């Protein structure tokens, strides 16, 4: 029973990692930029989720508005921070991204205060018995449900719509895609919109599980998501999903059985080193 619960906790954590890391891998796949400031959008999503839920009482509305607003902010980040630097070496954009991320923590602190925010009436706090002796919290069930739903929708869109096909074509070969009349600019906007919206959804869900959003809530995702996309094979979406789940589950068991020797955060990097020793291209990366 304990192992089952730990496995389940790992899947919950893995789902959150997946939502966050996917945006990062989308950006890397398209632009070869390590988008550290992605974690700031995750934080912004969490703040908007709590503020809107407290104002309207509807978590669903909060989730939707937060995703749309943060999606557009993501486009703004691309437009104003990355686009002017595209002709420069990629580390210049990385520096810009780190600067943006550091500044964002202090901006959140100035705008929303240093104490963090909580839901006034935390939604979905109860739990239900899935089977004999195994309780599932509504919030955790929602995390898994939302992740599966969003990733399925996204997968379907990328395979079955014109926009999806042009996005995949651009990732594969931007010059060829342009030659075939794909509007690269729109693909990039879409890319940032979708990635940022997923991060916002993760922010709202994490806020729900912790009942706390704070200026520094992006600091762990900022580097752990980087580890995940390297682990998955940079730019590989399937690899990112596999890496997110593996890491969630490893952390869950590691916290209990290795916690005295290895920090939870150290586990991620230990796993990363181990995988890269044998598969330098990542779990599912192309050689």
């Amino acid at each position, binding site marked *: 029973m304990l192992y089952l619960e*730990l496995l389940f906790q790992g899947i919950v954590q893995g789902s959150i990692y997946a939502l966050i890391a996917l945006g990062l891998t989308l950006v890397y796949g398209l632009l070869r930029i390590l988008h550290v400031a992605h974690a700031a959008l995750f934080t912004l999503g969490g703040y908007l989720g709590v503020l809107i839920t407290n104002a309207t009482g509807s978590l669903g509305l909060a989730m939707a508005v937060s995703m749309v607003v943060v999606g557009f902010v993501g486009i703004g980040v691309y437009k104003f921070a990355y686009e002017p630097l595209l002709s420069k070496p990629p580390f210049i954009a990385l520096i810009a991204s780190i600067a943006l991320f550091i500044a964002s923590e202090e901006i959140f602190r100035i705008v929303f205060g*240093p104490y*963090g925010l909580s839901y006034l009436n935390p939604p979905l706090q109860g739990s239900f018995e899935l089977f004999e002796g195994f309780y599932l919290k509504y919030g955790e069930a929602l995390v898994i449900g939302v992740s599966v739903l969003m990733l399925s929708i996204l997968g379907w869109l990328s395979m079955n719509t014109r926009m999806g096909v042009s996005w995949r074509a651009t990732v594969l070969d931007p010059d060829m895609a342009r030659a075939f009349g794909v509007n690269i600019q729109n693909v990039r906007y879409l890319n940032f919109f979708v990635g940022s919206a997923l991060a916002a959804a993760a922010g709202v869900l994490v806020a729900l599980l*912790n009942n*706390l959003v704070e200026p520094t809530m992006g600091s762990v995702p900022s580097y752990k998501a980087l580890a995940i996309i390297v682990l998955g094979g940079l730019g590989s979406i399937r690899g990112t999903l596999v890496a997110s789940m593996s890491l969630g589950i490893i952390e*869950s068991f590691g916290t209990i059985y290795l916690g*005295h020797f290895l920090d*939870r955060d150290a586990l991620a990097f230990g796993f990363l080193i181990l995988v890269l020793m044998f598969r330098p291209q990542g779990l599912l990366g192309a050689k």
Partner: protein
Amino acid sequence: MTIKSKLVIAAIGLSFLSTPVLAENIKVGFNVPLTGFAASDGKSARNGAELAVEQINSAGGINGDKLELVIYDDQASPKEAVPIAQKLIEKDGVIAAVSGSYSGSTRAAAGIFQEAGVPYISAFAIHPEITRAGNFVFRTSFVGEVQGRAGAKLVGETLGLKRAVIITLKNDFGKSLAAGFKEAAAKFGVEVAAEYEYSIKDRQFGPIVSKVKSDKPDVIYASGYFFTAGPLVSQLRAAGITVPVIGQEGYDSQKFIDIAGPASEGTIITTSLDRDSSVAETKDFIAAFEKRSGQKSDMVAASAHTAIKVLAAALKSSGSKDRAALRDAIAATKITASTGEISFNDLGEVQKSVQVQIVKDGNWHHHSVIDDAELLAPPSK
């Protein structure tokens, strides 16, 4: 010239002589995290310290001179705290300083102040090494081990619970609390069934919660700050764990209750501030703090307030601008402050009783007091 006009001239001359050359402010340094992860505690600490300064100045200051805080943001980081300590000593020429910050930065700064012979009071940083920097360094809060021992007594004797699981925040704060708890546990008949550790960045405790549930303890002794303890307690309760959770002064904020919501009810902590105190200093502080800052008082605010009051009392009694005399005066200070009766031992550690508070109806309230001088004796060397 008539006698009358001579008198007038003399009077004018005299009046020039007796006019003070603008009262000199007494500068006191204050390092506090105003940005970064500890900014929330920093803001409370700053409000508490500023309140103390306002109260002292409006009551006539230090023998007529006004007290002035020189505040720097140390981000709770040792590498910020060192240059700040040097700046306070050399550029600002402070007579003494107070730390409204965590152990890392306070410990780094303590050595600098000691070397320069500038008295330094740690308001709520708990690392045992801080006061060992030397005889110019004092502390007005408990070291972690002392509070951990008080926790063991609370669990074993006051509550009569036997089987404890410890959840430890993996930093000097959590580790020293756990060490004190484990040291005294056997004495009060408490068995430590298991111990788990988490990092200060963790907010999701799913795996630990699952494991604790399977351990079936009578009581959970969990160290942390309100921003880790709030999520932890709410996740323990959501998983159906109903045994008492014992925390410490890191929980001591209204924000803990905001985060954990109804799950916070019944949480018991060892701390320095008694919300239902009948002591005038404590009641005054709680009322004045809420009026000034618009938020409920907490442990860090009360501790910063206490540290400034201790310094002011010593400045008054030493009467001079001499730092060595001020040091001796702090060592001899005996006052009643917002966090209780304050006096120091030979190492500069505070000697006072531990307040036990419980969450009832969405507020911190009095539970009991642990007043066992032998158990609470701070390290003296």
